[in-house]
């Protein structure tokens, strides 16, 4: 799978073992071509977040190599690479007491000098861009000076998306971006994310646990379980049987359809956990 001409994100044999001996990632290989909306699906604790964080170096893998746009991620070039890798977070991770404007502008911080950052003196283009993206994600001018914490969850995630696009990222990592939102808003947010990414031809790696959303939005679904990739394919290939295996206690054999039980759970039941 994924033998596209240019792979934007490439993970080669990534291992991550936490200090307490837990294996979060077990020799994971993944290549995501440019412009793809790649959904990582799997139960809690499968290693989805760790995988995403390995891409921008928030988690340092204990083994293997990460390449972003053909460049290997090392502690030395980490900060440069992070500029082109945006991140959207499950809990929005906004500075809740700061204004919406300050939160969106903070997405452009790597591009301003310390003195400018200190006075909040962002360049006019950056201010325009912040307004542009806030409009793009469906907020209104009166939201600009409201505290981010006063907005609803859906609106906060919109701010988070606007912030993520401030630096014209090549890669957007979305870590359970809609886990704490209701289904309709989740759909709106993912639509926004997908459209905004398409405009920039940005690659999106998005972890989800809602199967229906994964099928609807993913160009490709990567199923993860206990730190390993157990499914990798187009959404059409990800049928209910495979879903059952992803979430059940059954062993994931290499392609034999007989090794799992027939009683696959309801989609919602799987989506809930």
């Amino acid at each position, binding site marked *: 799978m994924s033998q596209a001409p240019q792979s934007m994100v490439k993970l080669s044999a990534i291992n991550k073992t936490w200090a307490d001996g837990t294996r979060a990632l077990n020799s994971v290989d993944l290549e995501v071509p440019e412009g793809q909306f790649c959904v990582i699906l799997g139960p809690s604790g499968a290693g989805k977040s760790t995988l995403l964080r390995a891409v921008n170096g928030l988690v340092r893998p204990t083994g293997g190599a990460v390449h972003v746009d053909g460049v290997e991620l090392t502690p030395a070039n980490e*900060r440069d690479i*992070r500029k082109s890798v945006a991140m959207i*977070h499950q809990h929005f991770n*906004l*500075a809740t*007491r700061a204004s919406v404007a300050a939160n969106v502008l903070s997405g452009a911080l790597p591009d301003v000098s*310390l003195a400018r*950052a200190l006075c909040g003196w962002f360049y006019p283009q950056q201010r325009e861009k912040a307004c542009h993206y806030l409009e793009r994600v469906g907020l209104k001018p009166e939201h600009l000076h409201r505290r981010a914490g006063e907005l609803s969850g859906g609106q906060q995630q919109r701010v988070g998306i606007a912030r993520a696009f401030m630096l014209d990222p090549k890669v957007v990592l979305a870590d359970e971006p809609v886990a704490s939102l209701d289904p309709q808003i989740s759909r709106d947010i993912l639509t926004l994310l997908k459209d905004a990414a398409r405009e920039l031809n940005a690659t999106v790696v998005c972890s989800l646990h809602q199967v229906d959303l994964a099928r609807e939005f993913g160009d490709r679904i990567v199923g993860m379980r206990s730190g390993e990739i157990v499914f990798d394919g187009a959404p059409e290939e990800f049928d209910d049987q495979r879903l059952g295996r992803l979430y059940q206690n059954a062993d994931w054999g290499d392609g034999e359809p007989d090794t799992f039980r027939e009683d696959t759970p309801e989609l919602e039941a799987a989506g809930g956990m």
Partner: protein
Amino acid sequence: MNTRPIPVPPEGARLQWHLDQPFRLKHLVIAILIFALLILTGHRTEMDRMVIMTTQAVGNLVGLNDESQVVRGLSKVADSMWPPQLATSEDIGRMNDFNPDDLPWFARVETRETTTQRINEETLQLESATEITEVLYDPTGYVKTVFAKMIETLEIALWGTILAVSLSIPLAWFAASNYSPNRVTYTLARGFISLLRSVPELIVALFLVLAYGFGPIAGVLALGLHAAGFLGKFYAEDIENADKQPQEALEAIGAGKIKTVLYAVMPQVLPQYVAYTAYILDRNLRMATVVGLVGAGGIGQELKGRFDMYDYGHVMTILIAIFLFVFVLDQLSARIRARMI
């Protein structure tokens, strides 16, 4: 999900139930030891004598006994302190810049006759000589002096606070374990902060007066250094305890540590910082009246000087001024706080 069954004891197993009394002999022994320690330290700090003397004083006041050292001492001081000294009179002959056409408000020139008796060396007789001096009598002269000193005290407190804030911000950076460059800088910063906090303002001021001489420099430095220790500790702890999520978001785009603190930590901790700084300003205003006692400027220096010269009337004026000053400040700060919240 990793589900592990909750351990349940096998059926029919006898369970051991214990519900002991809350206190045992150990606790009684500890209580006796604490009581003995209180008796001992109480005697060493003369708490027993304090009780006796206070009882005598109360007895004296209600007329049960006629001798009390406390009442005698207090009434002697009170007698000499009343009335408070408001006026100044200055010998015109000793004034360099006296201008009869430009007297201060309410001030007037008076002539004083002073009669002195001395022995005439030739006749060896006591003679009284009368000397007439002109003095400038200003009925509110001392109030003005005290007011000027009060303003100086305010300024010392203000600059002590400014110094403390500007010192403690870099200190807090190095003393916050999640932003300090390494363990060495962290330990050094924490150690320095503890050192600053551990020495009381008055003692710092005592040494700074030796270094910088009498006057407000020593006062500002003493207040600033001590408060920097306090602020540094609290600023640093707030940075450490701030919500990690917004910081992770900025770290993830490579914003760098300083910008991350500015945009992800500062918005969260700013209200607390304002509260700490306001507390320090409040504390410095009160401490600034005291550091003068060791010569570090402000009203305290005036108070000490007058006290040492037994000018208890002046002392009374100063004490009233300090009381009014602190009272007005309390009212002001309460009002400002009410408006800010």
